[in-house]
Every structure is written in C-alpha cells, then in structure tokens.
C-alpha cells in the first residue's frame, strides 16, 4: 500500500477483555514501531521490531501488552485484561531500516482504543 495502515480505526471494549490491534507497514520497510498517545500528550514509545524480532520492548508498560511480527511485515499488538487506563490512540510507524541513514518514521492513522 501507499502508507502505513492500521485496523481497526476505532475499538471499544469492556474492561477485562482482550484486544488485538493490527499494523500493515509500508512494503519493504524492515523496522516497525508501536507508540501510544493519550489525549494532550506526545506519543509514548512501546516497542520496535527490526525484521521479525523485537529490538527494543522497553516501553511496554507491563506483561499484559505483547506484540508480534511473525513474518517481518504485519504486526499485531495484543492487550490482555484491558483496563480503563489503556484507553489511548495506538500509533504504528515503519521505516526503511532502524539503523542507517533513513531514519524517518512514517506513521499510520492510529487505532483509537476505548476501554469502558
């Protein structure tokens, strides 16, 4: 596709439920990043992948959050036992490579998660 796509665009779930958020990066981009953004704040880093492996998962807030990228393209962010504090816009970005001259990250439109 032309850009990073994320599905769903909006997700409303009940406290305690499990959710999956999907990210399709730009074709050929080897690095993929997840951030989340609360209202009025800047994006907060969660995890990034170089290829299939998680190169840095230091931003995941706790073990309820998990992300995979099994084939080095699409990634899924999984949140177990959702809490109201998980409500935010989850942003995905990709870049041509994580370590090299092309640092620019291209962001998707985000998934707005609301936990009721």
């Amino acid at each position, binding site marked *: 596709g032309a850009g990073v796509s994320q599905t769903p665009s909006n997700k409303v779930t009940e406290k305690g439920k499990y959710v999956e958020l999907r990210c399709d990066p730009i074709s050929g981009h080897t*690095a993929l*990043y997840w*951030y989340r*953004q609360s*209202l*009025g*704040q*800047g*994006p*907060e*880093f969660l995890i*990034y992948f170089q290829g299939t492996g998680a*190169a*840095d998962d*230091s*931003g995941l807030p706790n073990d309820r959050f998990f992300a995979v990228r099994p084939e080095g393209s699409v990634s899924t962010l999984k949140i177990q036992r959702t809490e109201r504090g998980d409500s935010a*816009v989850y*942003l995905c*970005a990709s*870049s041509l*490579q*994580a*370590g*090299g001259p092309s*640092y*620019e*990250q*291209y*962001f*998707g*439109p*985000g998934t707005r998660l609301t936990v009721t």
Partner: protein
Amino acid sequence: SQQGEEDPQALSIQEGENATMNCSYKTSINNLQWYRQNSGRGLVHLILIRSNEREKHSGRLRVTLDTSKKSSSLLITASRAADTASYFCATALNQGGKLIFGQGTELSVKP
C-alpha cells in the same frame, strides 16, 4: 517518561506571521526530529537534524539545534491557516530506533 519539553504549549498567530516553537531535552542525542499532527491522529515527519548540525532549512521551515543547551527550535515563516496543527519534537538516542516525543505545541493560524 517524556524526554522533551516544548514551549509554548499553545500558540495563536495571524496568517502571514512567523511561528517559533522550542524544544528542550535531557540526554545526549543522535538526532532530533520535528513532526506535525492534525486532528490527534497520524504524524507527518517534517525535518531531521543531526547532533553535529546546527541549522537546517526545508521550505518555510527552519530548525536550529544547540546541543550545549540541549534545545531546538522550529520556525515556520509566513504561516498559513493550513499550518494549524500540533507540532512535536522527538529525539533519537541512537541511529534509528525509538523516538522520544515531547508534549507538543498546539499552533493555531487564523486567516
């Protein structure tokens, strides 16, 4: 935690005026980037400045970086109503890898 602090938090100007936004950060960086965000959704990359650079231009944008003060500024000249958005600085501690964003400046340009 956020690395960057941005100033001002909100800025309102008239079309044609210049807009200046500032960003301060805490640790040594590899590069600093500025992004624009409309309507609280996707971010658009504007410009990247490396730690060994002091100034960079792109169209109506001018970015400066002072590593001794750990600060950067973004200047938008001859602003337009379409420039209305939130602007974020983001620092990269290493080549590539994660970005650490500031809290942003909300710019409003009135026609």
